[in-house]
C-alpha cells in the first residue's frame, strides 16, 4: 500500500470524525436557531449561556457530580486495588471479574437496574441517587487504571522500605503512592470524563428533579436543540483541548502521555 | 581458492545523528564461519541487519554472489537469520514455526514433513513438532529458531548473538553444536557477538569491530596472539598493556629494561604499546628473571591462580597454576615470542575501553 493511499485513508477518516464537531462549532455562532441555514455570525448563544438558569443549573449538576463521583471512586478504587493485590490469585480473578461487569454491561442495564434498586429501597431520585449511580460505574475505571501500575511496581520497593525500617503505613505513603500516582491521576480523570459525558445512567436515575448537560440536551432533541447547548459544548471542548495540549507540552513523558490520552478520552 | 560470497563495499549507515558505520567494507567467503566481535554500539549488529536486508545503507553496496542486492527486500534474499531473542511465532507450535519458510516456497506437504523432522533431528529436538513455544526452555527455543532458519537451505546463515540468554554450560554445548552444524551443512555462518570466548571457539575468521571500524581481522590465533592495537589486545583475553620504547628491530625497552622480541618495522626509539598475556609471564626466584618484584594480590580462579605482581613500577597481571602467596619476592621473565608490539592508538576507537566501575 503506497504512502499516498494511506494518507488519503487517514484524511478521509479524520474528516469523518471531525465533520459533526466542526458543524456544531460553526452553528454555535449562527445568528438564528436554525441548524440548516446560516444567517450570520453571532455570539448571542454564548451570551445567553450565562443567563439561562436551566442550563446553569445543569452545568453545576454535571460538574459537581463528576468531581464528587470521581473523587470518591478514586479513593474507593485505589484502596480496593491495594487490598486486592494482597489476595490470592483466585480471589483476585473473581473480584476483577465482578469489576468488569459495569464496564462491559450495557449502560441501559446499569441505569435501569440502579433505578429499580433505588425505588425499591425507598430512595427518591435526585442529585444523590445520580451521584451514587455515577460512583458505581466510575470505580471500575479507577481500578483499571491503578491496578496495572500497582502490578508493575511489584513488591520490590515496598519490601526495600520495610527492610530499611519503615512501618507499613510509612512505606505506603512514601514509596507506593508516589509510584502509582500516575495511575491514580489518570483513573481520576477517566472517571471524571465518564461521568461528565454520561447520559443513559443519569437519564434513569435522576427522577424529574435535576438535569445534567446530557439530559438537558436530550430533552430538547424532539423540539430542536437550542444553540446555547452548542455554545456550551464548544466551550467545554475547547477548554479540554487547551488543557490537554498544555499538559502535552508541560510533561515530557511519552509513554505516560499516550496512556493518559487513551484513558482520558474514553468518554 | 576461497570464493567470495558476500561483499560489503563502502557501507555508511547513520541513525539520526549517530554514525554507526563509516565506509565499512568486508568480504565473506564461502563455507566460512566469520564472527563480528565487538562491544555494544560498535556496528556489528547493524552490519548483520544490512546483510539480512532489515536496514538499508545510506551509502555503499551489498553484493551476494556477485549480484547487487542492496535494495532487495529480506524476503527475497537467499539468506536466513537467527534472531537474538529467537523471534519464534508464539501462536504456532514448533513444527509450524519450522515449516513456515518451506510453506512459503510452496514445497509439498510430504517434503515439508520430512524437512521438519530433519531439522529437529539436526538440533537434537526429535519429536518436538507439536510442542507449544511457551513450553520450551531458552536453549530449546534457540534450537528451534536455528532449525527454522536452516531448513530453508540458505547459502548464508546470519546469527545475532543467539547464545546471549543461555547459561554457561548450555552456551558451551551450543558452541560445539554450531561448529558441527556448519561442518555438516557446509554453509557460511556470519555470527555477531560481544563475547570473545564464543568468537575464539567457533570462528574461522574473527573481525574485531569498534566504533564502526574494523580494528583487526584474522584467525582466532592471530587475534589473540598478535593483537594490532590496544583495543583488540584489551578486548580479547586478559592482557598487560604497557608503554615501551622500540629501540630498534627486535629490541624493546620496558620498565627501563631491555627485552629481545620478534617484531620488526616499528622504527628506532619510537614509543609503542607492548602487550604481554598474563599466562606468558614466567615467575622465578628474585634475580633469575629480567624484572624483580613482589606479589601483591592472589585470587584462586579454579583453572589457575590470578596474581598481581608489582615489578619495574608496573602492576603485572600474572596467571599461573602454581600459587605464590602475597608478599613473596619474585622475578618475572618472558620469552621474546610472547612480547607483542603494537602501534600507539591513532584514534579513539583503537584505545582500550575504559571501564569505570
Amino acid at each position, binding site marked *: 500500500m503506497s504512502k499516498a493511499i494511506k494518507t488519503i485513508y*487517514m484524511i478521509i*477518516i*479524520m474528516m*469523518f*470524525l471531525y465533520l*459533526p*464537531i466542526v*458543524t456544531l462549532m460553526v452553528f454555535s455562532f449562527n445568528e438564528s436557531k436554525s441548524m*440548516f441555514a446560516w444567517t450570520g455570525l453571532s455570539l448571542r448563544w454564548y451570551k445567553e449561556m450565562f443567563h439561562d438558569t436551566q442550563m446553569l443549573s445543569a452545568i453545576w449538576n454535571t460538574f459537581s457530580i463528576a468531581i464528587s463521583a470521581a473523587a470518591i471512586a478514586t479513593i*474507593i478504587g485505589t*484502596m480496593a*486495588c491495594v*487490598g486486592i493485590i*494482597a489476595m490470592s490469585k483466585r480471589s483476585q480473578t473473581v473480584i476483577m471479574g*465482578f469489576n468488569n*461487569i*459495569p464496564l*462491559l*454491561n*450495557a*449502560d*441501559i*442495564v446499569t441505569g*435501569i437496574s*440502579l433505578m*429499580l434498586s433505588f425505588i425499591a429501597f425507598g430512595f427518591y431520585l435526585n442529585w444523590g441517587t445520580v451521584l*451514587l449511580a455515577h460512583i458505581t460505574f466510575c*470505580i471500575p475505571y479507577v*481500578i*483499571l487504571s491503578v491496578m*496495572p501500575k500497582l502490578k508493575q511496581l511489584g513488591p520490590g520497593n515496598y519490601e526495600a522500605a520495610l527492610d530499611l525500617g519503615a512501618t507499613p503505613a510509612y512505606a505506603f505513603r512514601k514509596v507506593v503512592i508516589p509510584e502509582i500516582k500516575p495511575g491514580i491521576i489518570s483513573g481520576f480523570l477517566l472517571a471524571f470524563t465518564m461521568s461528565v*459525558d454520561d*447520559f*443513559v445512567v443519569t437519564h434513569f436515575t435522576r427522577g424529574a428533579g435535576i438535569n445534567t*448537560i*446530557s439530559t438537558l*440536551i436530550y430533552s430538547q*432533541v424532539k423540539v430542536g*436543540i437550542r444553540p446555547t*447547548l452548542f455554545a456550551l459544548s464548544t466551550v467545554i471542548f475547547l477548554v479540554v*483541548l487547551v488543557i490537554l495540549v498544555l499538559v*502535552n507540552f508541560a510533561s515530557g513523558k*511519552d509513554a505516560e*502521555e*499516550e496512556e493518559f*490520552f*487513551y484513558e482520558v*478520552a474514553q*468518554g | 581458492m576461497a570464493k567470495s560470497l558476500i561483499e560489503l563495499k563502502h557501507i555508511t549507515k547513520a541513525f539520526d545523528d549517530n554514525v554507526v558505520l563509516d565506509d565499512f567494507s568486508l568480504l565473506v567467503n564461502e563455507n566460512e564461519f566469520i564472527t563480528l566481535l565487538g562491544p555494544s554500539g560498535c556496528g556489528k549488529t547493524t552490519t548483520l541487519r544490512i546483510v539480512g*536486508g532489515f536496514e538499508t545503507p545510506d551509502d555503499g553496496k551489498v553484493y551476494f554472489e556477485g549480484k547487487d542486492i542492496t535494495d532487495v527486500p*529480506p524476503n*527475497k534474499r537467499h539468506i*536466513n537469520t537467527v*534472531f537474538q531473542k529467537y*523471534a*519464534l511465532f*508464539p501462536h504456532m507450535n514448533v513444527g509450524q514455526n519450522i515449516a*513456515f*519458510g518451506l510453506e512459503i516456497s510452496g514445497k509439498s506437504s510430504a517434503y515439508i514433513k520430512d524437512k521438519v523432522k530433519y531439522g529437529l533431528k539436526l538440533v537434537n529436538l526429535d519429536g518436538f513438532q507439536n510442542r507449544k513455544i511457551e513450553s520450551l526452555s531458552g536453549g530449546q527455543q534457540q534450537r528451534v529458531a536455528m532449525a*527454522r532458519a536452516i531448513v530453508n537451505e540458505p547459502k548464508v546463515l546470519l546469527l545475532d548473538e543467539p547464545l546471549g540468554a543461555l547459561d554457561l554450560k548450555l552456551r558451551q554445548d551450543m558452541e560445539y553444536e554450531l561448529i558441527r552444524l556448519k561442518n555438516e551443512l557446509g554453509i557460511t555462518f556470519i555470527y555477531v557477538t560481544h563475547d570473545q570466548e564464543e568468537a575464539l571457539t567457533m570462528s574461522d575468521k574473527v573481525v574485531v569491530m569498534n566504533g564502526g571500524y574494523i580494528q583487526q581481522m584474522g584467525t582466532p590465533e592471530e587475534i589473540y596472539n598478535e593483537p594490532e592495537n590496544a583495543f583488540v589486545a584489551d578486548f580479547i583475553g586478559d592482557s598487560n598493556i604497557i608503554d615501551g620504547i622500540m629501540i630498534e628491530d627486535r629490541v624493546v625497552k620496558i620498565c627501563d629494561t631491555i627485552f629481545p622480541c620478534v617484531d620488526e618495522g616499528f622504527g628506532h626509539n619510537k614509543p609503542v604499546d607492548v602487550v604481554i598475556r598474563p599466562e606468558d609471564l614466567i615467575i622465578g626466584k628474585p634475580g633469575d628473571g629480567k624484572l624483580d618484584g613482589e606479589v601483591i594480590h592472589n585470587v584462586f580462579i579454579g583453572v589457575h591462580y590470578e596474581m598481581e605482581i608489582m615489578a619495574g613500577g608496573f602492576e603485572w597481571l600474572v596467571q599461573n597454576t602454581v600459587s605464590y602467596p602475597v608478599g613473596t619476592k619474585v622475578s618475572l621473565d618472558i620469552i621474546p615470542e610472547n612480547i607483542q608490539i603494537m602501534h600507539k592508538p591513532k584514534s579513539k576507537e583503537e584505545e582500550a575501553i575504559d571501564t569505570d566501575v
Partner: protein
Amino acid sequence: MYRKLLSMPFIFWIFVGTVIPLAMIAYYGFTDRLGNFTINNIIAIFQPVHAQALGLSLGLALISTAVCFLLAFPLAMILKGSSWGRKGFIVFIFILPMWMNFLLRTMAWQVILEKGGIFNTMLQTMHLPSLNIINTPAAIVLGMVYDFLPFMVLPIYNALMKIDDNIIEAAYDLGATKGRVLKDILLPLSVPGIASGITMVFVPSLTTFVISNILGGGKIYLIGNIIEQEFTTSANWNLGSGLSLIMMVFIVISMAALARLDKSGEGNFI
C-alpha cells in the same frame, strides 16, 4: 493482612451497586405487577413488535461492528507504522472528538444528513443525486459506527503495537510476502484486541436507544427503545425487565466469547 480490609468498601459497593441491582431486574422480570411469579415478560419477546425490534437491533449491531472492524483494522495498521511525529499525538487526534458531547455529535449527523443538510448540498454541487438516508436504518448504522469507531481502533492498535518487531522481521526473513505477514502473523496475534474491540462496539450498538431516537426520527424501534419506553412512558417495569433479561443473554454471550478469545485480559483499550 489488614490490607485486604481496604478493599471492603469496594466489595460492598459491588454487592450493593451491581449484584443487587441485577437481582432486581431478575425479580421484576419474573414477576407481574402484583408480585406473582410469571414468565410472561420473558415470552413477550416473541410478540411481533418485540421480536422485530430485537431482530433489527441484532442486525444493525452486527453490521455496525463489521463496518467498524473493516475501517479500524487498516487504520490501526497505518497508525502502527506511522512516523508522523509522536505516536501519542496521532492517536490523540483520533480520540479528541470524543470530548464533544456524544448526544450532540450524533445530533450533528442529523443536521448533516437532512434533506437540506450539508451532505446533500455537497452532493448536489457535485451533480450527484441526493441521498436520503436520514431516518432510515442506514443512518442509525452510520451513527453507531461514528460513535463507537474509536473503541474498535484502540484495542486493535494496542494489540498490534504489542507484537514484537523481531517476529515480523523473522517472517520476512523466511520469505513471507506482506500479505502473508498480515494473514499469518498480524491477524492471529491481534485477536485479543480484535475480540475486545468487537465486544465494545457490539454491546453498545445492540442496546442503544439514543442513536435510534435521534437518527431514526422516532419511527425506528430498536430493542433499546422498547425497553426504555417501558420504564419511562409506559411504566411497565416488569415487561421492561423481562425484555432486558433477554437482551442481557446476548451481552453475556459476547462477554463469554471475549473471555475465550482474550484469556489474559490484555486486549484492553488502556
